[in-house]
């Protein structure tokens, strides 16, 4: 097949070769997936680099090319998971055109969904991060801070907004993460999505009052997440 004149220079030269960059990405992805699985299964302290390279099917040299030690691999995993989760949640929140409670429901639904779909990563982030040293715990803190702006607009719906504590948003986000954490510790990732109505009611109540919060939660239940 001949390229049309003038277009040849823009055609890729034959089949795309496996580029060095793509294979490095793939190596990192495999290392992080293996780290997530192992940390979720047996805890951060018990996880060794030997186990990670075996499960990721990469050599030691490859591991050390990307990460200095297992802490660095775990932090990279937390950063990637936090970014991904925040993106998915914010995107669901933004895409929802309805009023603010619906937006919160959409964001919360996305959070529960991603945690249910990736229980190993979720467990690594929520259960293990606080136990894996101050750097990892700081990621946990960053996660709470990241969700706060999505809740803050609720203050406009509350006539007593000036009396709400400044820490309310992070407190509420903490409550939801705590319950997700509990489910993950109990090995009940499959039940996470069923939490949507009650977690939504918990998040909305301080802003819109109990009646509206319960009604919104009922709506979320009817839709089935």
């Amino acid at each position, binding site marked *: 097949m001949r390229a049309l004149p003038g277009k040849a220079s823009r055609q890729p030269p034959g089949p795309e070769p496996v580029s060095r960059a793509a294979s490095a990405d793939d190596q990192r992805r495999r290392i992080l997936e293996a780290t997530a699985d192992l940390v979720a299964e047996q*805890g951060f*302290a018990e996880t060794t680099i030997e186990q990670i390279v075996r499960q990721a099917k990469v050599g030691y040299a490859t591991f050390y090319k990307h990460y200095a030690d297992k802490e660095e691999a775990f932090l990279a995993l937390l950063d990637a998971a936090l970014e991904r989760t925040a993106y998915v949640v914010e995107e669901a929140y933004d895409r929802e055109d309805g009023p603010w409670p619906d937006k919160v429901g959409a964001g919360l639904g996305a959070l529960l969904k991603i945690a249910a779909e990736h229980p190993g990563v979720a467990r690594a982030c929520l*259960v*293990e991060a*606080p*136990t*894996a*040293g101050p750097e990892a*715990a700081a990621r946990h*803190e960053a996660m*709470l801070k990241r969700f706060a702006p999505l809740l803050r607009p609720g203050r406009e719906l509350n006539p*007593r907004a000036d*009396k709400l*504590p400044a*820490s309310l948003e*992070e*407190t*509420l986000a*903490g*409550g*939801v*993460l*705590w*319950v997700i*954490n*509990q489910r993950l*510790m109990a090995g009940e990732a499959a039940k996470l999505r069923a*939490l949507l*109505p*009650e*977690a939504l*009611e*918990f998040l909305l*109540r*301080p802003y819109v*009052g*109990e009646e509206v919060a*319960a009604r919104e*939660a009922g709506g979320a239940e009817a839709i089935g997440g």
Partner: protein
Amino acid sequence: MADGELGPLPAGRHGFTREQVAHNQRERLIAGLATAVAGKGYRAVTITDITKQARVSRRVFYENFEGKEECFLAAFEVVVGHIQELAMEAGGPSDSWPERAVASAAAVLRFFAEEPDLARLCLVESQAAGPVVAARFHETVSGVVPYLEQGRGERPEAQNLPPTTEDSTLGALVLLASRKVVAGEAEQLEEVLPDFAEFILAPYIGAEAASRIARPQAA
């Protein structure tokens, strides 16, 4: 709980029975762990750090505990037991449920504010001391659920609260308190009592009544 001030056991005839000495050694090891953990954090603490603080031998340590984790759990239980007593004794016998709940929360926050090292042990290190201790920490927090559930009897509306209300509320506050400790603000924990009290009570007695009880001076 300034057990760190205990001196070494006097050698020779101190008139204690063997059980009394053993009990005392165990307590000193627990206090030693608390001091050592306050100094450098659970993960960095070694058995030597603990035995040095406790001024007992390694052999005595291993007679009492299998390792660092078991010693930490023992310390955690001692502190939690003390906090539970404070919470139970808080408030008067004729107090209503909301008043008792606020008095208990106040007692716990006061303890943490006065004992920042033990607050750290309980709220922060326990989450960072590995999966066994972290699970124990979660169990302990869940142990408070039945006391909060009593609030469901306060109003008909409260009976329809979602089942996870207590867990979410407790988890939210425990995380808030532990983040304050991490930020070095344990001493200020007493100041957040009105926020805590309102957050605890609102689902059960309604936002306005909760605000009245939590912030009597503002009313």
